[in-house]
């Protein structure tokens, strides 16, 4: 009885934290902050999964979301030309549409949570969640997971080959030229060396 009350309290606190940090994702003004608020939200959800005895999936949530949000923050800052993501910026656009979509999905999901009848199946005695998950992954669902795993591994190896310092076409630092501004033109930003200039600067007086 005591344990279940404790679990209930922890569940409510974690759920509130997950919702609060999820809301902060849209109210903050920086992409890095938004990513890490989302990470906090997912960590709370992972802890709720631990409360539900999903020992592997809950812990996997921590490291998957940790790496995922980190990579997301890194690339968003890299591509969006906002120095380090510390310049204040609006995190949402299409306000009316997104408010409408948000309210609609909240009502639908909330109605499902409140109105649906969930099966009442207590955990069977002696269930080992980790090994039963393993049997599921390498049993009936093996084809799906193994093909996804091999595709991901091939992608990783491909990325390393393409971006490594010594790729298939020799060292990355040798002989690399920017492409021309027009097809077949001279490399952009690399004017022909002028012999008379002698390497010095031109001064216009």
């Amino acid at each position: 009885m005591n344990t279940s009350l404790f679990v209930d309290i922890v569940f409510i606190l974690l759920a509130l934290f997950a919702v609060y940090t999820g809301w902060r994702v849209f109210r903050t003004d920086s992409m890095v902050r938004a990513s890490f608020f989302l990470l906090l939200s997912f960590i709370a959800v992972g802890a709720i999964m631990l409360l539900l005895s999903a020992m592997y999936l809950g812990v996997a949530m921590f490291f998957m979301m940790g790496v995922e949000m980190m990579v997301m923050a890194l690339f968003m800052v890299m591509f969006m030309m906002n120095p380090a993501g510390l310049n204040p910026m609006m995190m949402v656009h299409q306000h009316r549409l997104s408010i409408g979509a948000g309210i609609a999905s909240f009502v639908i999901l909330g109605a499902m949570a409140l109105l649906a009848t969930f099966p009442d199946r207590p955990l069977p005695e002696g269930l080992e969640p980790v090994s039963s998950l393993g049997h599921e992954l390498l049993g009936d669902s093996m084809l799906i997971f193994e093909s996804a795993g091999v595709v991901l591994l091939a992608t990783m190896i491909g990325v390393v080959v393409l971006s490594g310092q010594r790729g298939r076409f020799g060292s990355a630092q040798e002989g690399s030229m920017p492409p021309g501004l027009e097809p077949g033109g001279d490399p952009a930003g690399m004017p022909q060396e002028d012999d008379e200039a002698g390497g010095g600067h031109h001064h216009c007086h």
Partner: protein
Amino acid sequence: MILDQLIWPLLLVFAALVLGPYWLAVLDGLAARSFGLAQAQSVWISPLSRGAWLLTQQTNMTEAPDWWAWRLAPALYLSLAAIGLALVPWSREWVATDIATSLVLWGSVEALATVVIFLQGWSANTLLTLIGAYRYVALGLSYILISMFVLIGVALPAESLALTQVVASQQELWNVLRQPLGLPLFLIVGLALTFRGPFNLADSTDLAGGTSADVSGPQRLVWELARSAMLVAFSGIATTAFLGGWLGPWLPGPLWVALKMLAVLALLAWLSRAFARITPERCVSLMWTVLLPLAFVDLIWAGAEALL
């Protein structure tokens, strides 16, 4: 019962969290002395006086930092180290966090450490700290991957993701001999994860201190403490995964764990003084094209050994 399951393990975790960084500083001083580097103070006193000096120093400020993240990042790194130490089984009964997936939880600690180190550098809103943060993230992924493969290797013979089972599976033969590539790779990851010695790229001198370039005072003390505590937690996991944890003759289990952790820390302190810092570009190549394939070999070795 509550004494065995809660009080003693927690006391040991806090003791390791406080004494571990001090011991690491002492061992680092001894390693420096062994290379002939003169020190003004005794190696036993100098960590304490440096701590006291940082504690009384004023706290630096930068222009418009992300206050929450900047103040919290060192504390968060320290708490990740505490989570790591809580996973170390001190004996068959004395485990602070005895869950079925403690090995995976350690992987999560490594992944979340990347986030915290990035936050430390990013939130200061200055140039060099940000470069240190980006550098760590760019390299951190390869560290985590190597560590994962090596740890899957020790989970195979144990047929479990719980660290207590990993220790129990080393009753006949420690993993350091059963999987000879495992411990060396794991130690390299340890130095990389806490950016020490040859892998000090996030807080390195070429960035004038990297992620902690603009951090001073108590905040810096917590950051340095957290880096050391993380390496102590790392030595605890290395002891558990490769050196048979509490297993050993004559002495009680927790003492064996502490002695093995000290030995690992001494080796790490010596290694970080013995090798010069490598450049980031070469570190990327080393990690992805040498150490990661070696981690694959380690995993194949472990799998073949488990099949035989």
